């Protein structure tokens, strides 16, 4: 089955996504600052569409909308305000949103954020391809890449780890 909405073209298997490398995050909150700066044109940490849950050194967890292929928030939305656009991004029709927070409750990652000022729920929209959060991230925990690139890079890295560990005779997968 080919989804008509998104990236079905040959070579365009997946759109570009914000990739989170949780191990690199140091919990500095710069991405939140960047998000509020880009969206509200003001300094602050809320309402940020990207969230950092710092639980100590090496324990920070970044949550941002994953733009799921079949979003749970879309299913949960009472007003059918959430839809998938042609680039595969999950978008929200602000006029239809009644601020019921169903999507906030449904999202397993905390990707949907409730804006108290506007009484609306918000989802990361990739800022039109200009990722300030990724640009400001000092540790490289945030990246923008295509899914296939991630897969290839991780495969190469795991191979390199094995080779450098001297276990080049064989590797056993279990």
């Amino acid at each position: 089955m080919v989804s008509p909405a998104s990236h079905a073209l040959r070579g365009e298997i997946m759109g570009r996504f914000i990739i989170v490398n949780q191990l690199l995050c140091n919990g500095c909150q710069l991405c939140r600052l960047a998000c509020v700066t880009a969206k509200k044109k003001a300094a602050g940490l809320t309402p940020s569409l990207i969230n950092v849950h710092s639980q100590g050194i090496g324990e920070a967890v970044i949550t941002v909308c994953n733009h799921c292929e079949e979003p749970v928030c879309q299913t949960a939305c009472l007003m059918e305000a959430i839809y998938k656009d042609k680039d595969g991004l999950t978008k929200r029709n602000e006029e239809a949103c009644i601020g019921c927070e169903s999507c906030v409750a449904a999202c397993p990652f905390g990707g949907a954020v409730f804006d108290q000022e506007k009484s609306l729920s918000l989802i990361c929209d990739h800022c039109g391809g200009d990722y300030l959060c990724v640009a400001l991230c000092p540790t490289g925990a945030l990246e923008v890449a295509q899914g296939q690139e991630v897969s290839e890079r991780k495969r190469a890295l795991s191979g390199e780890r094995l080779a450098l560990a001297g276990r080049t005779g064989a590797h056993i997968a279990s």
Partner: protein
Amino acid sequence: MTAKQLTLYVDLKRCMNCRACETACKMENDLPAGPRWTAVSEIEVTQDGVDKCYFMPLPCLHCGDPACIKACPTGAISKRADNGIVVVDENKCIGCRQCLWACEFGIPQFGSNGKMQKCTMCVHRFDDGMTTTACQDACQAEAILVGTVEEISATLRQRYSDTSRQQLYGQLLDKK
């Protein structure tokens, strides 16, 4: 881990980067352009001042305690009790790609429908009573072995004894 956990063994010294396993996997599972359930990585490393190149075919490792299962919010990924193969239920998958971020080896693949798909260790072949995977059959260098740990161990012992016998006889012949 289950008692009859099926295991993939890949011998990097034998792999010659012919990518027959990739082709066989695509044909067996009828995959379009894009997702590669197994892929051969070309690894260039410098060890002791010497540049080396290794080839590593990397299908899903079907981990004993998979990170993808922990990352999946919908419970779409599961580990089969009978042979330990990690399988994904496309009906439950919502395509959030958390498994790809979690997997250390970049195994989860996403096709044109946006759902996660990955190496099934040819589970349909094992269900039909066969004992090999498509990549194993295609591998001319016999770099890929599939089976329980005991079966693989037996094959490796046989291989080792064969090589050491050759080396021993070679040394004896050299002395004469």
